[in-house]
Structures are given as structure tokens and as C-alpha cells.
């Protein structure tokens, strides 16, 4: 937010620019004002609530405060979910994102210990209330870190969908797990992403599931030949367009949670397949908002590519 305001830019990555509730929540957390946090979280949609809680989980030093909140009211699902996300975040801070072979035994132990603590807070929370979507989403994340297996992740996802259908933050969590590096395969991921996107109400941002699934595969492809065949795979392309028409290209496309990532990822896809009008349409929807992925892992590099694509889409040279 600050960055966006002090340096007006044509490419704005700060998620707070699209979701102004994020700084409101983090400010309330910083002053340890739980009733203000709850007032905000109770007023937004389940997807916004989960996403806000998840984002806030990366704030510093929340554990003591949240445990105190839960001591007073063990049934506070928002506090449990936030504590869960926060402990998982702390676990990953200890583990680091290094390759598994480079993680020391002490790091593994600290990681697992934090994930176990998170899971236990979350088990209690879903024992009190089986319909809290943020809790189930956090439990999907915990299940992956704890290697609880695909059957257990599926069970958690089924519970989540029974409580809150089409819960995009939870769907994105399961989609991660369906990548081959966790417990799934590209085919399973593709099917899940496509079917979930088409099952969501028309105009919702759920198309991003399939667009992100495509880029997850595309960016990890071994060589140009593999990338080329992915790009020209007719079934893949048909599915992506079918999903886009149900989502980002739908006349009723709404600015619900996830819309920036959805339009951004489809902009990248349409640019990749040289579909100029639809790339332009996505940039039109986005304005100056953007997400670095899948353009690049570096924001600076992504900004360059986004500007290039945008110029091309709006009729300039590439």
C-alpha cells in the first residue's frame, strides 16, 4: 500500500492495493485489538476471511497473543485458524525453503514440532465447529507439511466443500498438493482445477485454478520441446478457454477474492498463446494491478514483462 502510494506506478504488486482489508487487519493485530480483528473478519465473505487470516499468519510474534485469546474463548475459530497459519509459517521459517536434503535434523524437528502444534490447535477448532472454512484450509496446508497423505488431504477437502462449497483458498491449497512433487499428478491436478472452475458460479475467479495449474506444469517443464507440446496441446487449450469463458471472460466476472490473480494469470496465458484481444481484455480488467507469478519470480523482472505484454496487447510492438 505504502509502496503503491508513494511511488505511483503502472505495475502495482502490493496485494493491499486490491484488498485494502489486509492493512486494516494487520494494524488491528499490531495493536493487539482482537475485537477489531473479529469485527472485520466476521463482516467479509468466507473466501476473504480465509485469505485475510492466511496473509496475517505471516505477521511476527502472534503466538502468545492468540493463545491468550483462545484461553478466554477456545471456540474462537478465527483465532484458531490464525494461530494455525502462524505456527505453520513459523515452522517453515525454521525449515527454510531449502531442498529437503539440505535441511538439518534440528530444522526438521523444529518444523515438525510447529506443524504438530498448529494441527492440534486446528483439530480443537474443527471439533468445536466443523464448518469453519479457514480452519479446514489451514488443515489442508498442515496436512501437506506433515505428509499426512493424499487420502487425508482429500478427506479434509471434502469436509471443507461440504461446509462451504467452492471455497477458492482451500481449492488452491488442495491444488498445490495435487502437483506431482507432493502427492498427485499433472492429470489429477488438471481435472480437479478444470472441474472446480466449471462448477463454480459463472463469473467467479475460480478459473485461476486451471490457469495456475497450467503454469505450474509449464514452468517446471524440462525443455522447449515439452513446453511447446504443452502449448499446442489441443485439449489443454480447449479446457483453458472453456474455463476462461466461465470465469475471467464471463460478462459477470466479479471482483471477488482471487480476481487479480485470475485475470493476471490469464493475461500471461493469453499473451503466451498470442491471443491479443483477450490479453488486452485482461489488462483492461486489471488496470495497474498485477501479481509477479507467473511472469517471473522477481518483481522487477515481472514488471518489465508485464509492460511489454501490455504494450503489445494494446496495439504496440512487442
Amino acid at each position: 500500500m505504502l509502496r503503491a502510494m508513494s511511488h505511483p506506478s503502472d505495475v502495482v504488486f502490493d496485494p493491499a492495493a486490491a484488498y485494502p482489508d489486509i492493512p486494516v487487519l494487520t494494524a488491528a493485530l499490531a495493536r493487539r485489538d482482537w475485537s477489531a480483528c473479529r469485527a472485520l473478519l466476521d463482516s467479509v465473505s468466507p473466501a476473504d476471511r480465509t485469505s485475510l487470516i492466511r496473509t496475517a499468519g505471516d505477521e511476527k510474534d502472534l503466538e502468545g497473543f492468540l493463545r491468550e485469546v483462545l484461553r478466554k474463548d477456545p471456540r474462537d475459530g478465527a483465532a484458531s485458524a490464525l494461530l494455525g497459519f502462524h505456527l505453520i509459517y513459523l515452522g517453515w521459517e525454521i525449515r527454510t525453503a531449502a531442498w529437503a536434503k539440505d535441511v538439518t535434523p534440528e530444522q526438521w524437528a523444529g518444523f515438525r514440532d510447529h506443524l504438530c502444534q498448529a494441527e492440534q490447535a486446528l483439530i480443537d477448532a474443527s471439533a468445536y465447529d466443523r464448518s469453519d472454512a479457514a480452519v479446514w484450509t489451514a488443515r489442508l496446508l498442515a496436512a501437506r507439511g506433515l505428509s499426512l497423505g493424499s487420502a487425508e488431504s482429500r478427506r479434509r477437502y471434502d469436509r471443507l466443500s461440504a461446509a462451504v462449497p467452492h471455497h477458492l483458498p482451500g481449492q488452491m491449497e488442495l491444488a498445490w498438493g495435487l502437483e506431482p512433487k507432493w502427492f498427485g499428478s499433472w492429470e489429477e491436478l488438471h481435472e480437479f482445477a478444470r472441474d472446480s472452475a466449471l462448477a463454480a458460479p459463472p463469473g467467479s475467479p475460480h478459473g485461476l485454478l486451471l490457469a495456475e495449474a497450467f503454469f505450474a506444469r509449464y514452468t517446471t517443464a524440462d525443455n522447449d520441446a515439452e513446453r511447446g507440446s504443452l502449448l499446442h496441446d489441443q485439449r489443454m487449450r480447449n479446457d483453458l478457454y472453456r474455463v476462461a469463458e466461465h470465469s475471467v471472460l464471463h460478462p459477470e466476472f466479479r471482483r471477488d477474492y482471487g480476481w487479480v490473480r485470475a485475470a493476471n494469470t490469464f493475461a500471461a496465458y493469453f499473451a503466451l498463446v498470442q491471443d491479443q484481444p483477450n490479453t488486452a481484455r485482461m489488462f483492461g480488467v486489471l488496470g495497474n494491478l498485477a501479481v509477479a507469478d507467473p511472469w517471473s519470480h522477481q518483481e522487477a523482472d515481472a514488471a518489465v514483462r508485464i509492460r511489454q505484454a501490455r504494450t503489445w496487447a494494446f496495439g504496440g510492438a512487442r
Partner: protein
Amino acid sequence: MIRLTEVDGIPAVVARTGGPTHAGLVFRVGIADEPLARRGITHLVEHLVLGRPSAGHHRNGATGVEHTYFHTQGTADEITAFLEGVCAVLRDPPADRIAEAAEALHAESAGRGRDRLPMWRYGARDFGMASYPEWGLDRITGEDLHDWIGRFFTRENAALWVAGDGPAESLRLDLRSGVRQAPPAPSAAPPGAPAWFAGDSDMVGWDTVVRREARAAVFANVLERQMFRDLRLRGGISDQVRTEYEPRAAGSARITAYADSLPGRREAVLGGMVDVLAGMRAGRIDDEDVATVVGLTCDGLKHAESRGGRLPGQAFNLLAGRGVQGIGEVLAEVRAVTAADVAEVAADAYREGLLMTPEGTAADWAGYAAAPVSSGPVVSGRAYRGRKDRALRLIHGDEGVSVITGDATATVRYDTCAALLAWPDGGRHLVGEDAIVAKVEPTLFRGAEEVVRDLDQRFPGALRVVMPARDPSAVPAPVAGRPWWRRET
């Protein structure tokens, strides 16, 4: 209406019922009374008493954890003949039929699944015995049989039930005289309950020990309904779920729960079970479930009352020094159970719970403590090195044996050894009272033959279990361990 009477000094419960007349003679003895090296002796007695099943006559028996009974259905004369026949065999057991009966029991037990929870909770003693095979069968002598019957199958340790007009005037129960045997005292539970251990199947299992009371029985059935909904109907991850409530003589009750898993769903069955238990502990008890279970329980009790089905339980109670409980009192107790009562039991049950996870899974993440898989300090004594595997060590001392494999240690002290299993190929397993097994395999350790000789001298008699020859492929062969300089990954 159940009335109390006596036959030859043996207390009896009698009720006139609508169904066929039946009667049973129960003794306060069961597998929880057996030492590991005599495991199976009570079942053997039961088998010798009943002999071969005779056509057209309903007669059976059962060897339970704390009680063993003989039961028949028929005319008054048939009942008298059966009960007097039981007493006659117990007076003069046919020692010449032991081997034949043992063989039949071996055949009967082949393929029977093992309930692994008891040994993890209690060790290789008292209530843990239910986990063990009938290892004692092959070494039971006529003298052992005589002693066992003299201790447990006595007039003072028996009770009778009769559904019908009551025992015939002429009935004589000519049993040996002895003393009433108190129910076995359960040994220590695993530390830090709730605890978990990994099972060896697709199944998730759980057991707990609570106070014996109507609301605990209702809890067990409410738990089954919740499991059915979550694991079978809603989850589609399990095909069979069941719970059981087993009252014990001394005033506690064991509750068990099992769920199998559909192919590829074992982690989900575990996760689902963890959530079912946590939900009930948190007090999420469905009022409708409680009402349904209370209704079904009362119907079942009334039906049992009309057929004399409550009589065996009342006879068991007599042996525990409890009075006869009338149906009205029992029904009132069950009807008074509320969802809040069930939630209270659930919280106690959770704390005392022991979870058996499906093979290859763990439950540390759910807040369960690992039940110990290794034991006590390593004994001092002579060390024998593993063949090929440098991480393998056998320590043989004056107090016991330790086997060290990597970071796990199994120590069995001679003074707390429950049995020595001896194979003709030289393999010797010392089973500790805590159920830890120290496996002395001469094929795995250099020079371990002298340890085998020493163990054979130390355990020549009562604790020795002679095992049938193993298939050569079942004898452990040395495997090269990881080179010591390479770290485990």
C-alpha cells in the same frame, strides 16, 4: 423378575421367561488370569469339558477375559444332565485328551485376528493376555490342569443361572472346594495417555478404560453412530465400523472402537477417527443420537429380560459380590443418561485413550504420545556383535538381556520375564512383562550360542514356551547395516 437361590452352596439367579429354558454355570476365571507361558489353559479346560459337539443338543461355552462359562438349552432333565456332566469332567479331567484338545484349539485359532491394543496398554500380563496366542497349550500336563481347575473351577468361584422354572430339586453341582478368586488387577497403563502405536493392518483401533456405568455404555454406542456417519456415510473411507462396551468385574469398563479402511484410504480413516474423538471430547454430542441409543438400549434390555438374556450378566455380578439388579432399576439408569453425561464420559475416555494407527502411519501430529517401543536401561554384561550389521548388539548379563538395533533398545530382565520362546533352530525370544521382546537370534550375533545355552539353563521350566519349527525363510538372516560413516537420510 430375577430371584436369587442356591444350589449346593453355589449362588444362582433364576427367572421365569417366555423363551426356551436354558441354564449356565460360570466361573470367575479367564485369560486375564493366565500366565503367558500357560496361555490357553482356560480355553483348554472349556474344550475338555464340552468335548465334541453332539448333534441335536444345544451346548456351548466361552472363555472370556475374566469369566468362563458353560451353557445349555433344553428340557429340565437335559439341563440337569448337562450341568452334572460339566461338574463330573471338572472333578476328573481327562488328561489323556489334552494333546488332542490342544491340536483342535490350534486349528481353531489359526487365522484368528489379534487384538493388539491390550498388550500395548497392559503388557504381557493380566488384561494384556488377550493379545497373545495360546502359547501354553503344548506344554500343559495333567498336573497343570488339575492345579488350574483346583484354583479356579471350584464351588466357591462359581455361579449358576437358570431361565425357566428353576433348577431341578435333584440337581447336584459336585465341584471341588476352593476360594473365590478376586478379579485380576489391571497393571499400569502406558504413560502419558492419550497414546498411540502403529498397528500392522489397514485398520484404525482405539480403546479406553472408564467407570462402568450406563452412560459409558451409551457413549460407546453414540461413538459408533458418529463413526458410521463420518467414516462411512459422509466420508466413504471405511466399510466397517464398530464399537464395543465390555464391563469388567472390578467396576471399570473397556470401550473399543475399530474402523477398517477402503483401499488407499488409511490416512483418511486415521484422520477421520482423530476428528471423531476430538469432536466428542469437545462435547459435540448429538442429542438425537443419545435419544436413539437410549431407546435401543432399553428395547434390548426389555427383550433380554423376557428371554433370560440378562441372567448371565447377573450371575457374573454375583461373582463380583454385587447384588441382583432389577430391570426397572437398569432401565431407569439408562433413561436418565443425557448428552451432557455422554460428553463427560467422552472427555474421560479421550484422556485414557490408546490409538492404534493403520500400518505405516503415526498420530504424534494429533497430540497423542508415542507408546514406548523400547525399554529400560541396557543391562551390563558381555556384548555380542551383529553379523554384518555393526549397529546391532546383544548384551548378555546376570540380570537380563538387551538387544540394541540402531536407536531402539529392547531390554528384558530375568526377574520380570513373562516367557522364553524357544525354537528348535536355536532362536530364543525373551518376552518381558511390559511386552517388550528381546530377540536372541544366533544367526544374527557372533557367538550367541552360549547365550542360548545360558538362557536354557535359567528357564528350564514354567516360563519356557516350546515353539514349533520355523520355516527356514522365517529364521532371521544377517543383513548388512548402513555403513557407519554414512549419515541416515
